[in-house]
């Protein structure tokens, strides 16, 4: 049977069988095609419980769907309307998994500007809540590990180890984490700038600030990259940080 205005029906909702037998009755022919309804049949409430169980996810209970966050969100405003933090929260609360999955390709696009969190009238830590939602989705295998997480981990590792970040190292670290080949010197295992598989646009991007940089600052940066100083008394702070991270259940080394 033909569908009129077929373009209006999602392809995944069209079932077509050459031969179809239902309860022993052969219904091939006119009834060989079924359009599955758009109806939501149930909620997955465990999804919400898992989000709340994440340390970042607790404030999701406060949301009352005013959409202050989405109206403020640069990703929503300038990139893709499907990136909608307010809507993600609603879907996560009811556990509408298929709807979340439809948006899996855009969900990790947060640029961490934190406008949502600073403006939320109900005190929802929106950016953190979305990370919690993403984490539960990743755990369930319905979204790929988001690429920005690699950088997050690199950043956190750096702070955790030294109590500070090095701009140069962070840049090279980011390049490496993006999957580009970085050539390292054999002794200190530090990246050598501008050789290897780094694309031209990235080299240009990295070279721009170098041209205008004070030579003393450049040397200082290089020195820090090579010999990576630590924040004073960092080991004491590190112990405190570790304790807090363990208490809150975030990953530790």
């Amino acid at each position, binding site marked *: 049977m033909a569908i009129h205005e077929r373009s209006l029906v999602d392809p995944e909702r069209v079932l077509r069988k050459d031969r179809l037998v239902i309860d022993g009755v052969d219904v091939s022919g006119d009834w060989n095609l079924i359009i599955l*309804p*758009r*109806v*939501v*049949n*149930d*909620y997955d*409430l465990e999804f919400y419980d898992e989000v709340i169980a994440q340390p970042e996810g607790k404030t999701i*209970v*406060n949301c*009352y*769907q005013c959409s202050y966050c989405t109206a403020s969100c640069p990703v929503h405003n300038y990139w893709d309307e499907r990136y909608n933090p307010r*809507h993600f929260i*609603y*879907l996560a*609360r*009811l556990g*509408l998994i298929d*709807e979340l999955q439809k948006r899996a390709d855009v969900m990790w696009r947060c640029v961490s500007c934190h406008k949502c969190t600073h403006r939320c009238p*109900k005190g929802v830590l929106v950016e953190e809540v979305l990370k919690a939602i993403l984490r539960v989705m990743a755990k369930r295998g319905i979204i790929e590990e988001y690429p920005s997480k690699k950088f997050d981990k690199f950043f956190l590792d750096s702070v955790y180890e030294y109590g500070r970040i090095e701009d140069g190292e962070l840049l090279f670290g980011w390049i490496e984490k993006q999957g580009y080949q970085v050539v390292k010197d054999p002794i200190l295992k530090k990246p050598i700038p501008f050789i290897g598989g780094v694309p031209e646009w990235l080299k240009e991007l990295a070279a721009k600030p170098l041209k205008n940089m004070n030579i003393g600052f450049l040397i200082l940066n290089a020195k820090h990259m090579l010999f990576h100083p630590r924040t004073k008394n960092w080991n004491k702070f590190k112990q405190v940080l570790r304790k807090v991270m363990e208490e809150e259940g975030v990953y530790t080394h």
Partner: protein
Amino acid sequence: MAKSVLVVGGGPAGLAAARTLGKLGIPTILVEKEQKLGGRPVLEDYHTLIPRKMTPQQVIGPFIEEVQNSPNVDVKLGVELEACEGEAPNFKVKLSNGEEHEVGAIVVATGFQHFDAKRKGELGYGIYPDVITNLELEQMFSREGKLYRPSNGQMPKRVAFVFCVGSRDRQLGVTNVHCCRYGCALSGLQGSEIREKYPDVDVFCYYMDVRTYGTWEYPFYWAPQEKYGVRYVRGRIAEITYSPTDGRLRVKHEDTIVQRPAEIPMDLVVLVLGMEPSEGTKKVAKILGLAQDPDSQFLLPAEDAGSNIISNKAGVFIAGACKGPIDIESSLSEGEAAGAEAATFIGAKVSA
């Protein structure tokens, strides 16, 4: 000039008016149609009253006691107002027990009645035993002290509140287009009570918008979500069906945020009933010639009066739910105001 006051209705507003009049030393006749004082909250065993979260006994009990013990208030149970002649301040009133009295002022506090949910056939009330009204849920709490599915006596896993049943609905005619005012708040409270006592039960509120106005916002809208985990879903329930395969109900609606139709399994569905003027209110309006809202039939205050207890007829004061949906504390304070207003109308003064 007659120096007594007639109070029509023995609910919260009427009791408050009679109590104030009694304390001022004014001879008062209180007529109540039922055999018991207290009005809807007492007669129908409400469990908890918003917004103070007190029982009807705690709130209305002291008023009943004071009125019954007042030497100035003559309580007549099982009696209605039948006729009224004359103008203020010389009303000649005839009661259903045959008595006739002369009164200087009248306080009308004839109240409301609950919407009859059977009129919304698509919601299955009276067809499926697990579709109940919020009044029946109150009685389940107050009379039996437990939550259960009427069909099998078991604990429900999921409870849905269906907002605005008999409110904001032109399909019922022009009589039910108003907002019931209490429904959103009471549902938030009932949902919280369920979640507090039975944390394993999931509670859903299906709403178009949530009208917990003023200071009710935190206790009856934010707290249910933040503290008790009541879930709010935007979409008006259009139909309730029953699935024999799993013995559960299905609430059919469009989730207007997700913009998809949904038929979600539920074990117990609670219809949040609207308020209508009681039969007594409509009858008294005819007898006394009071202005009524052409749509809802609730009593209307005088057009030129800023205060809403002044009726269009001199010497007649209106208080409580006969003027439209109202909460318990406003009903009591309106009754008190109407009582004081009636006292000054008949010329009572505090002697030094």
